[in-house]
């Protein structure tokens, strides 16, 4: 397909590139940290969208891949002295293997049962790590700041990891687009629309769903390694926060599930709203309540999200909004 020629992909890419270069232009470290968090959200939401938006499987515990990837990568660096360059792909690989194993077990479930199972998985992994000594138990793991010396000191490390996150964010968008306009993606969307019909049409649904689950886990796993390395510590409650999973779903739904630009727009919008709420004295304790309310409103009134709504309204923009 010559779908790479569609403006939609290049617009999405351009938005990420412009956003990613902003801190370089302004030289602001505060802006860099904000953009880092937005890119993290974009990458997580875009990855989740492959499962949620394309295959139609709602994962309420998707943060488990971020947490597990982050934990394993962090452990390899802090305890086994691996370099970041090896730990990041290792984190992605572990997340992919976990997704594959979980897929065998829970992807036969449908609808609400699958969603419930994913919550169970997240909680089970968190509890396990909480009680697992080699990974630090409830206290988690820490790195000494001296570890940053091999990456040119803490300040340089922050830029290095920023660019790593930037590349992974672009990778998430490219992956998202490539899957959507592939034969495989068409199979996933057939599953989303009617799984039984998809089977009758010849889609090997168990394989396709497992592959979607794996693809949706890799980049979150790698992002986890980067995030916790920057953080210089990892502990179970920050790695497996269920609310973060729900925020990922809100981002995808807000921007438009099943679209490529949706998770990008949704994540950026959500982060903007969140930072406004967090800094507002009136709303700072209600930020998560607001996320819940937002999800409710989207599902009730704009179930196709911002991009989906625009696509429905302006048919001529189909090549631009995707």
């Amino acid at each position, binding site marked *: *397909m010559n779908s790479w020629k569609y403006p939609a992909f290049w617009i999405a890419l351009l938005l990420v590139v412009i956003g990613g270069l902003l801190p370089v232009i302004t030289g602001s470290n505060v802006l860099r940290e904000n953009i880092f968090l937005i890119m993290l959200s974009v990458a997580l939401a875009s990855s989740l969208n492959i499962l949620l938006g394309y295959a139609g499987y709602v994962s309420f515990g998707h943060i488990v891949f971020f947490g597990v990837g982050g934990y394993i990568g962090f452990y390899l660096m802090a305890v086994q002295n691996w370099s970041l360059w090896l730990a990041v792909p290792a984190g992605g690989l572990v997340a992919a293997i976990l997704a594959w194993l979980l897929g065998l077990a829970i992807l036969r479930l449908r609808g609400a049962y699958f969603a419930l199972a994913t919550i169970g998985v997240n909680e089970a992994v968190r509890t396990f790590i909480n009680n697992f000594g080699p990974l630090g138990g409830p206290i988690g793991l820490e790195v000494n700041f001296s570890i940053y010396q091999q990456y040119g000191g803490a300040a340089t490390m922050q830029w290095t990891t920023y660019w790593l996150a930037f590349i992974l964010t672009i990778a998430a968008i490219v992956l998202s687009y490539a899957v959507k*306009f*592939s*034969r495989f993606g*068409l*199979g996933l*969307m*057939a599953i*989303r*629309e*009617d799984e*039984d*019909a*998809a*089977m*009758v*049409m*010849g*889609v*090997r*649904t168990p394989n396709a769903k497992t592959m979607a689950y794996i693809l949706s886990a890799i980049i979150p796993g790698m992002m986890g390694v980067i995030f916790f390395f920057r953080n210089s510590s990892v502990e179970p409650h920050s790695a497996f926060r269920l609310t973060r999973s729900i925020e990922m779903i809100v981002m995808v739904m807000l921007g438009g599930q*099943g679209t490529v630009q949706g998770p990008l727009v949704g994540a950026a919008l959500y982060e903007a709203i969140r930072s406004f709420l967090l800094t507002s004295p009136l709303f700072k304790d209600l930020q998560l309540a607001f996320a819940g309310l937002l999800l409710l409103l989207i599902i009730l009134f704009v179930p196709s999200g911002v991009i989906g709504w625009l696509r429905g309204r302006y048919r001529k923009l189909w090549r631009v909004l995707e």
Partner: protein
Amino acid sequence: MMAAQENILQVKGVTKRFGGLIAVNNVTFDLPRGQILGLIGPNGAGKTTLFNVINGVYAPTEGHVIFKGTDISGWQPYDVVKLGLARTHQIVRPLNDLTVLENVMAGACYGHEHHSLKEAQGIADEVLGFVNLSERRDMLAGSLNVAQKKRLEMARALASRPYLLLLDEVLAGLNPTEIAEMVQVVLKIREQGVTILIIEHVMHALMNVSDRVIVLDYGQLIAEGSPEEIANDPKVIEAYLGDPDLAKRLMENADGD
């Protein structure tokens, strides 16, 4: 003409039980290549269940389904379609949020022949022309009316390039003009060399297109023969049509067409 040809489908002693309910009871029949075989029976006779067993949605409790010499009993539907056995659904199942074209492309991509998206698009365009749906190509499947959805269902199955096509009540809910059009499509499909097994309640149409008819009642095969033989078979009249006069009227309709 057909006597010399081999059986593309053989159903041998197929039984399907759901708990205590016997939906299909020891059904045996052969379908020679190139024929149109009609499958009739009252509501709840087990016709759709038999389809589901043949194409792998259900595994048979007992018996065997042999397609082109391969025993496909208990295969998954996605493996069955890859051998060249496609079906439509009684209650249409369009992929609502995809376009008509994408629906048919999915059928082509994952069907009997493995196709890339680009090849699938070519096949889809051709098949959409065949079922007269080309002008709806870029519409969302969910926005079609019932008659169009039936044709989409048919196009999607055809796009998989099957040797054998199972049609489950493709005429139900259509008006007389639409029925006539659909019957033409069915006959055209046969001309292309595709064997057809068709469930239908629109009796005069079925009697016209079928080479042979088999009758299910309470899961059992009670009769088998030419459309005329079936319509005059006292067992069928009694068990299925119930009223001998009704049967006569149906046959008159069939002759009148």
